């Protein structure tokens, strides 16, 4: 029996390697073909469409080919995904539009402080592997709430876990669909709302027919596209500048050049001490508390997000689940350790060729982004030379030379504009767009599946109709997936202003709601259902309260809950004069826009609301510990089950009917 599975798995491995090898080769050939088409004069717009539609078609074909009518295939890909490939799929699942498009830009703006995100979004996998992931694999759940229900006494714990899951995943998926809309509208010239629904179709084709099985195999295809797309432009740029095609090694020189240029800009009056934030100087954008807070919340959040944990339910064994976490981080690392290179190369370009340049001699790529309102010079969108020349002239004493304070760039531009900055052909820009789409779609697939599975498996099957036959369960799963996807797309189409911040919030919410219960459930046998349930409610509740209050009810936070202004990290001065702001007529306004003087700017202990997990998680642990000790020890039977979860050998604890 054992040998039989091994040989079967071997054949499976070999076939996979050939398949994805051919696919990657085909993709490279396709890029070369488009490059040739560009040289013979095919217009850019057509190249962009070819890129997007070819890649979408491939994902859709994989999605349709891997359709399934089996429950275990639909929910956990039959638990047959080899560690290496699951790692790749997790990489795509993990890296979202924010990682692909936004992170390079954040590092550009924030310098050293931005690295908090790089550290936070990688180190969490250590926690996944040593504390939670492999144990959940041994347990044999279909969803994270499955584990909570089994370990913590039934459907009440299940229900809370589903609430936590939906809260942190829905805003996250909305942001991904928003990202697909943004990329498609920018590169294909589609209307934003149309682009959102086009992205939706792409997502549904991948996920609906084959569930986890289809999502796994498309995510691998998407990973290949996104990593090739991310690395190509900076590899070329690095070769151009320093003669070595490894940007991760050469950007050290770029950083040294940036520092030298910063001093030069200060000396020549192109920048002032007040507006120049030295690239390598730490803790000028985030205070040390918030810097380490972000690292901690993102790391622990990683280990608590259901769409990541459920990827490790799909490996053939516990051993492979552990190896798979290693592969995941390796594939993620390839992108994240390159992101600072994007930031450094872009910053050097901006500091040397834009700052200090005569406004009339700026390069044309600036104006293509300026027309979209993403680059501003002298306070006006940089749509043409004449416009900004006029705008700069209007500033008293302006010498017609761009100063640092004259130049504003949207963070999304950094990665997307790198091909143009480097003067590369349009085909590379199209490639970057396809990569950004792959990143957004793959994460959206994983998140949608997590939400829809929780609703269909946990709510419908486990709580409403435990006798439902397979065919009805699968139908319900697909219908729910469809409706959740449409709801997310409809939300994205309204362009909610908080959407990007909400992605960060999702980590803190997941951390406060899930992490203590998951860890204690595995590592402390004495944890009782009452302890876990009260702990989840308390941790999640406190985190949610802090978020909602500081963002949507800041006046009430100050008046009733003793909140005070957050502080400027560089100077230590309060961000807002609370006494003055409280005297304004809109001080107590509920659900204010971000323009409200106190929204997101008040809190306790100078703690940014993105770090609310730092309040919720310790409370969760404490409540679980105290309430568990007050109650009766869990039954011998339950303790034996916990022992079983801890041993890789043997059958899964939970056996699903299939």
């Amino acid at each position, binding site marked *: 029996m054992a040998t039989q599975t091994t040989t079967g798995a071997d054949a499976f491995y070999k076939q996979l390697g050939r398949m994805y090898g051919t696919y990657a080769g085909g993709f490279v050939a396709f890029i070369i073909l488009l490059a040739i088409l560009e040289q013979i004069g095919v217009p850019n717009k057509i190249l962009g469409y070819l890129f997007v539609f070819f890649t979408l078609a491939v994902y859709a074909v994989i999605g349709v080919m891997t359709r399934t009518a089996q429950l275990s295939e639909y929910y956990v890909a039959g638990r047959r995904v080899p560690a290496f490939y699951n790692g790749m799929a997790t990489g795509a699942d993990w890296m979202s539009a924010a990682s692909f498009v936004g992170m390079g830009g954040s590092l550009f703006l924030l310098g*050293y402080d931005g690295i908090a995100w790089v*550290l936070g979004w990688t180190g969490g996998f*250590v926690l996944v*592997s040593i504390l939670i992931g*492999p144990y959940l694999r041994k347990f044999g759940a279909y969803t994270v709430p499955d584990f909570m229900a089994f370990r913590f006494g039934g459907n009440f714990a299940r229900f809370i876990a589903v609430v936590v899951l939906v809260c942190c995943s829905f805003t996250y998926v909305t942001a991904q669909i928003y990202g697909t809309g943004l990329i498609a509208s920018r590169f294909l010239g589609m209307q934003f709302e149309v682009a959102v629904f086009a992205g939706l179709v792409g997502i549904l084709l991948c996920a609906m027919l084959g569930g986890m099985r289809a999502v796994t195999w498309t995510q691998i295809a998407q990973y290949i596209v996104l990593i090739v797309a991310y690395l190509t432009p900076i590899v070329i740029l690095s070769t151009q500048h320093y003669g070595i095609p490894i940007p991760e090694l050469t950007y050290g020189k770029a950083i040294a050049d940036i520092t030298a240029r910063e001093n030069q800009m200060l000396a020549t009056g192109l920048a002032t001490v007040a507006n120049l934030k030295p690239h390598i100087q730490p803790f000028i954008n985030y205070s040390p508390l918030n810097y380490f807070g972000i690292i901690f919340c993102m790391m622990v959040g990683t280990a608590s997000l259901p769409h990541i944990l459920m990827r490790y339910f799909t490996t053939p064994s516990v051993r492979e689940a552990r190896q798979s*976490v*290693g592969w995941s981080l390796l594939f993620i690392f390839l992108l994240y350790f390159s992101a600072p290179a994007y930031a450094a190369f872009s910053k050097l370009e901006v500091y040397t060729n834009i700052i200090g340049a005569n406004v009339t001699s700026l390069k044309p790529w600036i104006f293509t982004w300026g027309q979209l309102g993403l680059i501003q010079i002298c306070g006006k969108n940089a749509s043409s030379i004449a416009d900004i020349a006029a705008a700069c002239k209007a500033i008293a004493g302006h010498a017609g030379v761009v100063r640092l304070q004259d130049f504003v760039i949207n963070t999304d531009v950094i990665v997307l504009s790198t091909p143009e900055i480097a003067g590369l052909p349009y085909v590379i820009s199209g490639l970057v767009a396809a990569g950004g789409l792959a990143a957004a779609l793959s994460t959206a697939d994983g998140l949608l599946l997590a939400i829809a599975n929780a609703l269909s498996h946990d709510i419908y099957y486990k709580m409403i109709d435990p006798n439902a036959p397979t065919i009805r369960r699968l139908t319900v799963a697909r219908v729910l997936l469809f409706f959740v996807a449409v709801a997310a797309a409809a939300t994205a189409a309204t362009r909610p202003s908080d959407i990007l911040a909400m992605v960060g919030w999702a980590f803190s919410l997941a951390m406060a709601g899930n992490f203590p219960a998951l860890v204690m459930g595995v590592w402390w046998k004495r944890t009782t259902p009452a302890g876990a349930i009260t702990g989840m409610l308390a941790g999640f509740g406190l985190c949610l309260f802090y978020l909602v209050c500081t963002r949507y009810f800041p006046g009430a936070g100050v008046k009733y809950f003793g909140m005070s202004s957050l502080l400027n990290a560089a100077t230590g001065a309060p961000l807002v004069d609370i006494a003055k702001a409280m005297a304004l007529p809109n001080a107590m306004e509920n659900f204010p826009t971000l323009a409200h003087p106190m929204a997101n700017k008040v809190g306790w202990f100078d703690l940014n609301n993105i770090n609310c997990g730092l309040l919720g998680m310790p409370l969760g642990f404490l409540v679980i510990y105290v309430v568990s000790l007050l109650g009766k020890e869990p039954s011998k039977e339950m303790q034996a089950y916990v022992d079983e979860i801890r041993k890789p050998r043997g059958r899964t604890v939970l056996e699903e009917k299939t």
Partner: protein
Amino acid sequence: MAPSPSQANTDAHWQKTTRLMFIHLGVWFFFGYVIHMFVVPLNKIIIPVLGFPLGFYMAAQGSLIVFVVMLFMFAKQQDKIDREFGMAEDD
């Protein structure tokens, strides 16, 4: 009641697993947090040839490399513990 031999085996396995967990958690904490608390003095050291300030480098790349390596090491070490106590899955 004295624990049965199999229970003793289970406990020993878990004790070793727990120790490994704390070691890795310690390494994780050091490279995730402690080392970055010294970023300012570390930045005074410039890595030869590459030109990175060391503090910046550790955050942007060094710690990440440590995380990747330690995950593969952990998978191996935990598997060794599982095998030692006869709790590993069949190959």
